């Protein structure tokens, strides 16, 4: 078992989840409650990673963050930030790639809250933020949690985009999925099999948890 790769996978998943928690809540709530110009464009952009091959997204990220020109050069010159073949780059790619997995369940959860409930809260004297804190978040939490679990599980198993943007640097960008691939290349089947089983069990547990939460939330207040 490659614990370095395992720890890196967990670290990447947790950081992605932590970033997507506020991002998902804000964008999911915005898409659920507001009608604004460009809403469909924003929804399409968020959903894009679901239909695009990870290699396409990886390719554009590689091109965009190449430190020799454009945005990549500006980031390198201004902030000494190199996103190619680095953990920071992996995080960015992972956040982008997981946007639909995090936002869609959250958006659905906010959409399921009847408008009258929000309006009743306003009529009770609650301002915008208190409505979010006291009413919307408690009602939407199963959806929020589901989004985070999906993100966590998906990041744990992501392969293509990680390889494209991060390469295969042990301790820096080599995640468990890439370590399995490398072990197979080296004909180390026992090591690959242990890691594959670990990923399988982990993913199965997180998905079961997410479906259980979903079923629970459906009958919670009805």
């Amino acid at each position, binding site marked *: 078992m490659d614990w370095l790769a395992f720890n890196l996978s967990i670290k990447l998943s947790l950081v992605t989840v932590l970033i997507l928690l506020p991002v998902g809540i804000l964008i999911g709530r915005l898409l659920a409650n507001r009608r604004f110009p460009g809403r469909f464009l924003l929804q399409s952009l968020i959903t894009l990673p679901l239909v695009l091959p990870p290699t396409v997204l990886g390719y554009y990220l590689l091109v965009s963050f190449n430190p020799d020109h454009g945005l990549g050069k500006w980031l390198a010159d201004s902030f000494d930030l190199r996103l190619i073949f680095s953990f920071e780059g992996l995080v960015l790619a992972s956040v982008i790639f997981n946007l639909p997995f995090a936002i869609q369940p959250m958006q659905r959860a906010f959409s399921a809250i*009847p408008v009258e409930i929000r*309006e009743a809260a306003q009529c009770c004297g609650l301002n915008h933020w208190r409505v979010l804190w006291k009413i919307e978040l408690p*009602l939407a939490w199963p959806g929020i949690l589901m989004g985070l679990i999906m993100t966590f599980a998906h990041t744990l198993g992501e392969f293509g985009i990680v390889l494209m943007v991060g390469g295969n640097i042990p301790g820096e960008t080599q995640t468990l999925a890439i370590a399995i691939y490398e072990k197979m290349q080296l004909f180390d089947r026992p090591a690959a099999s242990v890691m594959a089983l670990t990923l399988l069990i982990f993913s199965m547990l997180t998905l079961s948890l997410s479906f259980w939460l979903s079923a629970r939330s459906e009958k919670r207040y009805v």
Partner: protein
Amino acid sequence: MSKTGISVSLSQQQPIPLQVKLTCKPGELLALTGPSGSGKTTVLRAIAGLYRAKNGQIECNGEIWQDGKRFLPAHRRHVGLVFQQYALFPHLTVFDNIRLALPKQSKVEQSREVMTLLAQVHLAGLEKRYPKQLSGGQKQRVAVARALARKPAVLLLDEPFSAVDQVTRRKLYRELLLLRQSLAIPIILVTHDLEESALLADKIALLHRGEVLQTGAPETLLKRPQTVTIARLMDQQNVFEGCVIEQAPNQTTLNWHGIVLYAQAQPDWPVGGKVYWMIPASGILLHRRDRPSRGEKENPLSGRIVEYFEINGQAHICVTVDQTPLCKLSINVPLHVAQRNRLRPGEAIGFSVLAQHIHLMPGKG
């Protein structure tokens, strides 16, 4: 702050046409009524601060809630709003639903206040329940308690009785009538139920396509509608065209398809002018078959029953008038009267159109 009540003036063309002027004094119950889609709920939402009409002036107890420059959001207006489906917070207990609307104070005070409100709406002992564990009537009471917890300057009720059965509705009517005696605030009730409006309200504002057509006491709207549209919206069946043929100091005489009808004096209508006239179903007196009765000489007519049905202890009869068979009159009589007179479809009857109940309205053009 002086308690002057609420005055509302809204006007816009798009997206929902609105032309509304309303006032409601402390302790008064105003029913905002009209057919579905007439804009009743939009007006209520505008008063609550949940909808911003393009041109609006809303003032409550001297405080401006909306004018050309200002728009106070819902959370800063002291309104208590009871929603049609109650909109209780499903994740909070009854206690917390009410507590959330209370002004900031110590937990002990809040707890005492919640208990007082629960007792006021006859729900003491149910504070630990969740909304899903309550019946429709109990939910409505919690919604009222929550609305009152805000210490509102105005109480708004959006079709609050539409989601409960008839027995519960009757109970809740009684409770509202008792509750309003202890509330010195304006109460605005939205309902499409005319009977409910007439039963509960001091004043009715009739809304049609976003416009308030007439405001007044229920009796006035039912018996003295200003136009034929209002009469029809108030569900008046007996509305006909006629012509004023004579004006005397104590009576107005009408020609209705060759029949002369005497009405109480309504001197505003010129002789020769086309008018609409109406008479409430309760303003027609049935002649007894066994012996003559008082009032038989007042606009006596005869006809034949073409429709008869019984509902709510009343017999509803539709009669073709012998003198003008194309015209049908609706008459309501108590069930025992209908049974004593053996009223059935096809039977010939005599009746009087009581002069004091004939009301004239502007005619076509």
